[in-house]
């Protein structure tokens, strides 16, 4: 019963928390929102230097971590500080390269871990919603390699990425798990065009059009048509990560609200003396502890058998989706107007907690998935 709480991870967590506390101010986010990438290059370099990017990858590919609890440790701190840097996309795309790449492809990871290159995973499509197996984008085999045609939507870090892992169908029907292949594509490939934009909760994304993009055979990542299992596994890592981030954001939202209840005076006393608010605050506290346990369960089973892992991961994303919404809305409501203002940090956490539910499957998606997985148990 360690719950992943090792000495090393405690040090990692302390270090990261200190770094972000010192370098991440609330007003920074609104400035970053005006930039093309939506995030801070300095922070990114700092994270790389601290080894935070490396902590997401195994030693085999040049990292020094990569286990479920390494990921959750890092992302909880990122969530607590409200960072907008693209670590999630790095973990997702980078993980696929680490798992499936040949030696040449794995070399792409060194500059990523060093913070010098940006990557993204272009998987979602206009009609896919949260379905991981929904791939309409098509890869036609040619003499020299493949030609990619299709559209990818809401590609996280898609505006800033130098290299993009693209999923495309090489066989099968639109929602088949079989027949999906991955390709490593440089952003300047001919026929690839991006419509970049900011995300409402910070950072960047892009709509990506693939209009007959020709890639060599060496662009194929992993075996032809069999990428689904790897995508599912890395989605599980990414979901664990984003759940841990949500946990950190919940803690921050909770702390800000408790502090506000203690200081804000109304009717001659701190509003935290009003019992109705006290009792609602306690529900938030309980939600946070439930979320923490859900994250532990997911992280703890990330290296386990597929069925248990996926059930734990879907359970976590469902629970985080439900509690995240409740915490976001309740914390704003208990603050009143001030909780909605951009200049006050809570608004970022409130927004982030809501929008996390729109990434990698919402609470409904994962509940239905949890039920389906239960039937095959």
């Amino acid at each position: 019963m360690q719950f992943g709480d090792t000495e090393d991870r405690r040090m990692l967590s302390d270090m990261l928390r200190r770094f972000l506390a010192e370098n991440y101010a609330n007003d920074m986010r609104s400035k970053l929102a005006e930039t093309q990438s939506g995030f801070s290059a300095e922070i990114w370099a700092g994270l790389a230097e601290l080894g935070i990017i490396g902590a997401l990858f195994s030693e085999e590919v040049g990292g020094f971590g990569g286990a479920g609890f390494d990921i959750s440790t890092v992302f909880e701190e990122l969530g607590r500080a409200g960072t907008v840097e693209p670590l999630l996309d790095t973990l997702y795309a980078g993980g696929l390269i680490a798992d499936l790449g040949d030696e040449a492809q794995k070399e792409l990871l060194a500059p990523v871990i060093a913070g010098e290159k940006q990557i993204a995973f272009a998987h979602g499509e206009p009609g896919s919603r949260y379905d991981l197996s929904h791939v309409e984008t098509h890869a036609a085999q040619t003499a020299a390699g493949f030609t990619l045609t299709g559209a990818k939507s809401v590609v996280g870090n898609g505006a800033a990425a130098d290299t993009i892992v693209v999923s495309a169908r090489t066989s099968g029907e639109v929602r088949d798990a079989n027949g999906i292949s991955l390709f490593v594509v440089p952003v300047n490939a001919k026929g690839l065009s991006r419509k970049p934009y900011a995300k409402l909760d910070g950072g960047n994304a892009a709509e990506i059009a693939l209009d007959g993009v020709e890639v060599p055979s060496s662009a194929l990542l992993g075996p032809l048509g069999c990428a689904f299992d790897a995508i599912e596994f890395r989605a599980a890592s990414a979901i664990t990560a984003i759940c841990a981030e949500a946990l950190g954001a919940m803690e921050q939202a909770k702390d800000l609200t408790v502090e506000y209840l203690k200081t804000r005076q109304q009717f001659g006393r701190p509003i935290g003396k009003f019992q109705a608010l006290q009792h609602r605050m306690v529900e938030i506290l309980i939600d946070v502890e439930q979320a923490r346990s859900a994250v532990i369960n997911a992280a703890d089973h990330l290296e386990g058998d597929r069925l248990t892992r996926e059930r734990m991961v879907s359970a976590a994303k469902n629970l985080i989706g439900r509690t995240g919404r409740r915490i976001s809305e309740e914390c704003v409501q208990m603050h009143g107007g001030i909780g909605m203002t951009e200049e006050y940090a809570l608004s970022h956490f409130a927004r982030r907690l809501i929008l996390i539910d729109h990434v990698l499957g919402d609470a409904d998606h994962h509940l239905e998935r949890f039920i389906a997985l239960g039937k095959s148990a």
Partner: protein
Amino acid sequence: MSSVDYDAFRTEVKAFLANALSENLKEKIRLGLPMTKADHEEWHAILNDKGWLAVNWPVEYGGTGWDGMQRQIYEIEACLANAPRVVPFGLAMMGPILQKFGNDTQKAYFLPRILNGEHWWCQGYSEPGAGSDLASLKTKAVRDGDHYVVNGQKTWTTLAQHANWIFCLVRTDPNAKKQEGISFLLIDMTTPGVEVRPIELLDGDCEVNEVWFDNVRVPVENLIGEENEGWTYAKYLLTHERTNIAGVGFSNANLIALKAIAQKEQLNGQPLADNPRFAARMAEVEIDLMAMATTNLRTIAKVASGQAPGVESSMLKIKGTEIRQEIDDLTRRAVGPYAVPKSLDALAEGNNNEQIGPDYAASASVKYFNNRKLTIFGGSTEVQRSIISKSVLGL
């Protein structure tokens, strides 16, 4: 009330709206794009020409004289037609207060200018230290000859950036306790010393503002009623039947829009609308709305029969905003991953970015975030609960 032919009235309203609304306005409302000052003014002028701008004013002041059922019909149809809302501060708030408590000079001067758009009003009640608690109101007005000199700060002042007049609660007796010693003052915002500063909200929108007063000189003629009696006048709006506090029209139109979105969004190859859980949520909120529309009509009937509402307003405010927020929440959830892009900017006027995802998705998140304010502003849900607890339950 029974002498009105409501079916004929509804037909007339529909016909008018179909004719009067420009494509530009309809499209902006449909997409949830921000309204400019000119947009508002365009619509107000059209309504004023028709004589339908002041739905809750008596005919003698240029209002419609409609009964409650007519107002509910108009409200539902206007929302369905994607008509812009009428900015309420002059028409629904300042107007009734002037009619009830203003002197003849004030009525003669201000009322026509609300209708013709010369005056754009905003509401100066809230202060940084006094949200629901007016006892701690700090903005003060000190009598100096035939002027008051006003100093202080108001906040959460919606659309103050467009306004040229503000009605304010100001402290005129610093020694009075609680809600006493407060006066109701009308201030020309072009007076030197008035400053408006925008507040950016979590949806990125800048609808609300701070309004600062630095030695602003206000003629004593601009006092409503008696000095130190301001809270009485302000309170009138809380207990007086407010137009549209239940938001039946908004909820009805938004629910219909949600259903259309859920038909278009696909989930595992089926419309989201056919997903049993999503369908159930839409149906539950529809059922709640059907009941609330009847609660609203019951309240209107009660008022028409001469009884003062009061606590019904609070109940309708709580339930109405809850229903609106639930519909906004479902709409946000319906659009899936497209809730994430900051895509409203791309659609806005003068911006030639292309749209991201389906057009109905653009405003889903922003509207959800923006409308968190519904349960905060205008007397928070918590404040309404305390009012009801005290007055109805006697707790």
